[in-house]
């Protein structure tokens, strides 16, 4: 037991501190009692009893989470703060469970019980929970009483708050006594009051102080919350199902146990476990960032101010990233056209969504989300066309050109899934054609058609097949080629390709083809909507809608197939067929070359071909001469990235001398080349 007044007369500063703390104490206690009366003991315990541990660390972990995610979560920090984040998630989940899963949410909406909650339109429990949460936050602001001085201040502030409240309560008591009949055994009331004051304000504090002195505050926190909340749960169980003699004593309570309470209890336990464990384990320097080594070789950290600096740096980085990205996007015609079309599409989608929300029309909204969905394909194409121009790195030795092929492949799969979904829903609607109302959809789909036609025109220089739109794009061709002067060569190449033999596999940008097909599918969709809505509104053919969508999905499926085939053959490293045979013939024609081993031919992107060949040459042939000749031969057949390994008999002898075997496959000599050319 400490003696609060032992330190003599109060100084002025201490007096003001006592006063402030007293006021705070009044506020929190008042809030706590209000919350207690509103939401019952168990919920109150769950939220309030961990004031010093849980709320603070939950808030801290949530803030920490937001800052680290902004800073693109550097590897160390994200793995270290994992448990803290999980604890924060548990805490939020518990609060949400209490707020939304409690049983009285439906009842409160109906019944207008008397109480302060009905003013705000909230249920009693919810308001109580929020009040208790506020109280808990306020208490966590209060610094813990550590030294004897602080303890005396705490005790005095309790007194001061009591003196502040005393006149109010006395006045209220006098007032209520005048209203009611006065003899409600004031001695009973006084006894209860004394009991409560003794338990709550004196015994609680000193017992917890004694316990923490005995077993340490960390484990006290751990055990205390477990004990308190589980005993609260038990009591409320007993209370909510009063049986036998108890039922006569205890009135049926309105604060019954519910599933939400149970869930919150479990989540809170988990949260407390996580926080107390992680708080015990890790040192306080979590926000510190490593800056280097001291002269003695020890690591140095900056402490404090970390999060603010981190935030500003992240913002700066994001700005720079956006600016650089925009410049890269605008640097090249393909990505530029995708970008502009994406902007157009997004604007259209935004207008559609806003209008849909305004007029509350479901059809518009779902169409808007569909457009948003399509935008994701465009974004992917944009990313791929920017990424594809990055220069090679150590782990991507060939550069990033293949990203475009990959994006074409993913886009093709995306389209196939879309087509499959449309097909399935069309089939199911074919059996039961629903009545649709299409007045509002018609203008929207016409607008969508216009937007998509614009996209078709702007992308049509990048594709090489598709009869109807190719004829449309033909007058467009000269100026599109002239605007894209930097890439004019490849474009004219693709055009000549498409005009000469229109349905061979197109050797150009798979990414652009994927985007083009996507836009084309959208156009087909809006055309289908227009046709079917005409048919429905004029002739009442309700079956026209599923038939149209069936047709469209089949069209999409079939037009995606070539793209899928091309990208698969590139990604699966198939060899470019006429070129590879040509190269082999040329290689074997070089004098001195006896056979080719381990021939590897592949298409790196649609227009870069690569080759790795081992040539076994005669013993007396000159290696450098054959090397240059072979490289030239490969170049003339179209392979620009080449590696030629010239082997003589000596090489095999050296290798066997070193105890290595030389793996060999795909040996091609002059005779066998003839055979293979015949069979393939």
């Amino acid at each position, binding site marked *: 037991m400490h003696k609060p007044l032992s330190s003599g007369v109060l100084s002025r500063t201490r007096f003001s501190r006592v006063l402030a703390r007293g006021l705070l104490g009044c506020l929190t206690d008042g809030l706590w009692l209000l919350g207690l009366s509103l939401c019952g003991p168990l919920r109150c315990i769950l939220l309030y009893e961990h004031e010093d541990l849980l709320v603070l660390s939950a808030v801290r972990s949530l803030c920490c989470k937001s800052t680290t995610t902004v800073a693109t979560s550097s590897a160390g920090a994200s793995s270290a703060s*994992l448990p803290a984040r999980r604890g924060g998630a548990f805490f939020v989940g518990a609060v949400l469970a209490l707020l939304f*899963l409690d049983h009285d949410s439906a009842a409160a909406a109906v019944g207008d019980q008397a109480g302060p909650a009905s003013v705000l339109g909230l249920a009693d429990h919810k308001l109580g929970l929020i009040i208790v949460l506020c109280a808990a936050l306020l208490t966590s602001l209060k610094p813990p009483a550590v030294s004897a001085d602080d303890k005396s201040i705490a005790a005095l502030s309790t007194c001061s708050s009591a003196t502040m409240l005393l006149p109010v309560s006395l006045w209220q008591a006098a007032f209520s006594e005048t209203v009611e009949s006065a003899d409600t055994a004031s001695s009973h009331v006084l006894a209860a009051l004394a009991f409560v004051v003794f338990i709550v304000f004196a015994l609680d504090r000193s017992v917890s102080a004694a316990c923490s002195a005995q077993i340490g505050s960390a484990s006290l926190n751990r055990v205390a919350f477990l004990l308190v909340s589980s005993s609260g749960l038990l009591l409320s169980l007993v209370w909510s199902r009063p049986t036998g003699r108890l039922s006569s004593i205890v009135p049926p309570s309105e604060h019954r146990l519910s*599933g939400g309470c149970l869930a919150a209890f479990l989540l809170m336990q988990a949260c407390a476990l996580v926080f107390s464990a992680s708080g015990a384990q890790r040192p306080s320097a979590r926000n510190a960032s490593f800056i280097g080594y001291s002269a003695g070789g020890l690591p140095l950290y900056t402490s404090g101010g970390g999060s603010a600096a981190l935030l500003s740096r992240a913002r700066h980085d994001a700005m720079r990233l956006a600016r650089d990205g925009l410049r890269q996007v605008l640097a090249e015609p393909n990505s530029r056209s995708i970008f502009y079309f994406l902007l157009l599409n997004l604007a259209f989608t935004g207008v559609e969504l806003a209008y849909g929300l305004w007029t509350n029309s*479901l059809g518009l*909204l779902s169409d808007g*989300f*569909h457009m948003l*969905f399509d935008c*994701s394909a465009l974004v992917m194409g944009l990313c791929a066309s920017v990424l594809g121009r990055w220069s090679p790195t*150590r*782990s*991507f*030795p060939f550069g990033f050109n*293949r990203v475009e092929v*990959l994006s074409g492949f993913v886009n093709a799969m995306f389209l196939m*899934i879309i087509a499959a*979904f449309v097909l399935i829903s069309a089939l199911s609607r074919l059996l039961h054609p629903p009545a649709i109302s299409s007045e509002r959809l018609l203008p929207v789909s016409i607008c969508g058609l216009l937007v998509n036609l614009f996209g078709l025109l702007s992308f049509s220089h990048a594709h090489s097949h*598709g*009869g109807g739109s190719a004829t449309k794009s033909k007058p467009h061709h000269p100026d599109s080629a002239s605007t894209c002067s930097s890439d004019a060569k490849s474009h004219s190449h693709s055009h000549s390709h498409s005009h000469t033999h*229109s*349905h061979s596999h197109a050797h150009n940008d798979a990414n652009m083809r994927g985007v083009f097909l996507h836009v084309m599918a959208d156009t087909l969709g809006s055309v289908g909507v227009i046709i079917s809505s005409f048919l429905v509104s004029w002739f009442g053919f309700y079956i026209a809608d599923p038939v149209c969508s069936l047709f469209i999905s089949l069209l999409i499926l*079939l*037009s995606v*197939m070539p793209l899928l*085939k091309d990208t698969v053959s590139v*990604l*699966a*490293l*198939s*060899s470019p067929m006429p070129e590879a045979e040509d190269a082999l013939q040329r290689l074997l024609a070089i004098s*001195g070359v006896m056979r080719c081993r381990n*021939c*590897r031919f*592949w298409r*790196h992107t649609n227009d870069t071909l690569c080759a790795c060949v*081992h040539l076994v040459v005669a013993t*007396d*042939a000159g290696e*450098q*001469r054959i090397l*240059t*000749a072979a*490289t030239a031969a490969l*170049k003339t057949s179209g392979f620009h990235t080449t*590696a*030629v*390994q*010239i*082997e*003589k008999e*000596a*090489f095999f002898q*050296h*290798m066997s001398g*070193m105890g*290595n075997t030389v*793996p060999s496959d*795909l040996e*091609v000599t002059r005779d066998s080349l003839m055979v293979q050319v015949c069979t*393939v």
Partner: protein
Amino acid sequence: LALLHELRDAYSNVVAFVRELAVQLAMLQAEEKRAKRILAVGGLLLISVCLLTVWGHLNPSMTLGAFTCLLLFDLCYIGVALVSLWVERRQRCLAYTFGYERFEVLAVFASLMLAILGVFFVLKECVERAFEPPDVTPSGLALGGLVGLVVHLVAVYSVENPAYNHVIDASTSSWLQEHVTDISESLCHHVPGLSKLLLPRLNPLALLGVSSAMCLFLASCLLDAYQSSLADITMAVLAAFVVVVTMAPMAAYCGKILLQSTPAHLVGQLDKALGEAATLDGVLELRKERTWLTGFGQLNGCLQVRVRRDASEQLVLAHVTNRLAHLVPGLTVQVYKDDWSRGLQPSASWVAPRFNPFAPPAAPSAAAASHAVAPASSASSFLAGSSSPHPSAASTAVSEANLPDLLLPASFAPPNPFTSHAGVSFMLPPPPPPPPMPPSTSSSTFHQRY
């Protein structure tokens, strides 16, 4: 009309492809015992997918839809197992010079992407439902989840799937896996016996199935308690999130293979081996080292090695191959010597004005402008002109000085018209270079000359 024609082509292609697929499948099934088992599991999956679809039709719950998507992914998983069986039986041929292993990677990637994209559709459906909620009843959701979970676990654990096993081992762990590992670590702290079961990493697909089923149970409980379809939608979004989170690292791993990249875990070893190879006797430098994975195991690579002029190429080749063979089995090493052409190319551009009698642009005009000045000054201007390209002059001198011993070795004097022509051209004073032309044509003539 052309469009129709093309579509007919595409259609016939598809039909041919499907027929080919059926034939291959029948062959596999006839010849492989494993294929039969896989097909049996696939049939079970198909039945349960149909069951769940009908279930979902009767009771339009989105969470059940998400779970059906998961089972559809399992069908793809089975398909990947079949593909790797098929790949095992194929040999390399001229059409696929790397073999068919890439198809395994492609199949895994495609199945993962299909799962992710399918989940996008679930999300879209969820958004639509949020505006117009249908009445979802909790009846049968839990039962459907149980059936689906059992079938999913059977598919994951009973089918031997080397491709997926490799990806699961090699890819970085997903968010879900990290958390579960973290929890199970602290669990194993108290119960050490569980560490064998839980600790290194759980199978992400099994984890995914369990968490999706838990979402379904939760949705059913919540629906039971609150009759609000919002709970169903929330749980469906949660399940979709879990699917994306699980699939993303694996898809990233496969995508990196498809992009012809060097696997990150091998970069250190490779650099060490290349460093060793660079110190071999006769090796001057290693250039353009490129390594990439074809399938889930084999590393291929190509490398250019510049060697000293007097080194034996075959010996260097053998040593370099020996150093790298254990890391990169499919290695192609291009051994080359520093030949005269590399010295010639830069020198020719500045040698030109000195020896070219045909109107070199700068020097004669300068001379014409200063024709009244004394010859001493013109000489000094000539010196000033030649002082700037001095280093390259030295390099040409070196390369020309080295010419004789380059041509001397006996192996380098075959009766080849090209080489002898080159030799002759170099014995003479440097020839007048061709008039300035774009680099592409000059390189082509360069190759024609040799």
